[in-house]
């Protein structure tokens, strides 16, 4: 076995440390700001500390908690729809070959390739006529556009490694289609569904421009509220909101860190 030279190992250690530091760095001033009462140049740390930003952020009048709820609701609804629509589509793409498959694949992937702004404005014109602008339903629908492709991509990868023979055998033993789905298909693809759903949820959770354009400022999700506070000079409240925004992801990550290890099946689905 070849042993790495000492300088290589040192370089690697340094790179790892730099990477870890770099990943944490932008979050640090946000945390500090949330506890600051004014923090001006050239102070490295705030001279006055205060919990006022947290009081405002957690109070009813700032709309932060309400928008946290709205953001979560939209993400859950969009993810649920993405699962319902994406699993069958992923199965079709992963298991079967059929005429026009390339065209369908291109259509499915197109929303990931075309920049969001190009879609958002045209969509606003469509939704305006349909009366869906400024509504929660409209925003949920619109969130499907960036989330569905991820879901289908993951499921196509899962189904590509899936052997439908098992279903055949179960059917030949007399199992009903529903039973086959519940006891054969679902357990096999569930890990993929979880990964896809997580991706879909994250995309909806952090979505900004689609919510802004279609929600018209009336459907206030957390990124919009954060943007508004940050651009109205309240850096302290922006810091508090940022932490509230990142916290759920952090908690979920800690609780499920085992299941999120890189999955070979997911990789196979990505071209």
């Amino acid at each position: 076995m070849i042993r790495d030279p000492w300088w290589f190992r040192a370089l690697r250690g340094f790179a790892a440390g730099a990477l870890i530091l770099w990943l944490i760095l932008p979050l640090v001033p946000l945390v500090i700001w949330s506890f600051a009462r004014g923090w001006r140049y050239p102070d490295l740390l705030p001279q006055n500390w205060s919990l006022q930003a947290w009081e405002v952020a957690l109070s009813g009048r700032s709309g932060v908690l309400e928008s946290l709820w709205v953001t979560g609701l939209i993400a859950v609804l969009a993810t649920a729809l993405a699962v319902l629509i994406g699993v069958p589509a992923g199965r079709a793409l992963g298991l079967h070959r059929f005429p026009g498959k390339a065209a369908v694949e291109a259509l499915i992937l197109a929303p990931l390739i075309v920049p969001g702004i190009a879609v958002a404005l045209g969509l606003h014109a469509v939704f305006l006529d349909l009366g869906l602008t400024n509504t929660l339903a409209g925003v949920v629908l619109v969130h499907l556009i960036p989330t569905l492709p991820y879901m289908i991509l993951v499921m196509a990868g899962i189904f590509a490694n899936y052997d439908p023979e098992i279903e055949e055998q179960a059917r030949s033993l007399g199992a009903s289609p529903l039973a086959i789905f519940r006891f054969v298909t679902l357990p096999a693809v569930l890990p993929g569904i979880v990964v896809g759903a997580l991706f879909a949820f994250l995309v909806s959770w952090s979505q900004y421009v689609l919510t802004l354009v279609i929600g018209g400022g009336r459907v206030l999700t957390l990124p919009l509220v954060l943007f508004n506070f940050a651009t109205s000079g309240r850096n302290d409240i922006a810091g508090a909101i940022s932490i509230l925004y990142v916290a759920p992801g952090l908690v979920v990550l800690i609780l499920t860190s085992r299941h999120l290890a890189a999955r070979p099946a997911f990789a196979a689905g990505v071209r």
Partner: protein
Amino acid sequence: MNKRTTLALLASALFAAPLGARADTSDGASLIGQNWEAVVAAARGGTVNWFMWGGADNINAYVTGYIGGVLKERYDITLNQVPLTDTAEAVNLTLGEQKSGNADEGAVDMIWINGENFRTMKQGKLVFCGYTSTLPNNALINWNNPAISNDFGVPVEGCEVPWSRAQFAFARDSATLSDPPRSIPALLDWIRANPGQFTYPAPPDFNGAAFVRHVFYFAAGGHGALLGPFDAAKFDVAAAKTWAILNEIEPYLWREGVTYPTSITQLNELFANTEVALTFDYDPAQFGIAVDAGRFPATVRSYGLTDGTLANTNYTLIPFNSPNKAAAMVLQNLLLSPAAQLEKARPTVWGTVPAIEMDRTPADVQAEFAGLPSHPSVVPAAELAPLALPELQAGWISAIEKGWIENVGR
């Protein structure tokens, strides 16, 4: 209630017709001249979507906290404040709704507005007009003052209701800059002598555009010749000089003028962190608010210019297709009330100049108003008032904005 208000109420009572409490009060014509009690009854339990510039947190707090609270407790009306980066977004929304034939289900119930945006809406017949005398507190407004009955040269004619008055002022940190330039020519000299210490937000930011107009007045040799409708010949002469001045000082600005702050909030951040030495605002009360919040050092002092600064009134209006007109009218009446205007005048809340005549309010309110402490960082309105410059008509304003973007911003 004084005699005038009572008489107004009695007169409108003659036209009283019973109005059941309806959720949808999009029919504005039926509300005009109504008995105020009937309007309140129609509004009860409803919602108002108030679209307003959201770039100052203390204003948002006053609106959602104090105003929203009173509205809910007293009238059971829910206030939904929609913060905007630019008031034009709300105008645009209503314009779009008009174009698609939406005449009674608009998303916007009220807009905080003045100037070009008001002109666009009034000319486009996007405004609910003619109802203002129905508001009891309308009597507190001095409509004989041309600065109130005209919004940037456009007659108000019952289409909007004033909210606050404002006069442009500058600010600096007196600890580092004890003697700031106090006129436009002095400022230009100071900029050249102190490179990188000054900048202004790029138009169409409201405050940035106002600063450019100050330079425009200076380039035109005074505002006298500019009042009145837009005159292309006069504009071209003054504009050429203005762009020459602004382009000439560009290399001495922050970042050498390669980029400008995109909002007054950004300029204030630069000022707070000593990246620039001067800032300004239409609403000098904001300097006091910023000091109290710890954003600015306590040694900040604001001041006017010897050659005058722009003064104007800002208003609220109701779009033609608002479905909650009664609730919006109740909100407007509340905003004009002595208590709300007094609360707004407190330096710790906002500190802005009332739009109503304080000598028409009850004696106790007047006494409290007179006794309000002035914030050391906020130049008193009375000091600025003698040097108030009138605003130009909206035609000039948009031409100046467009001209800056094309000649200086690029």
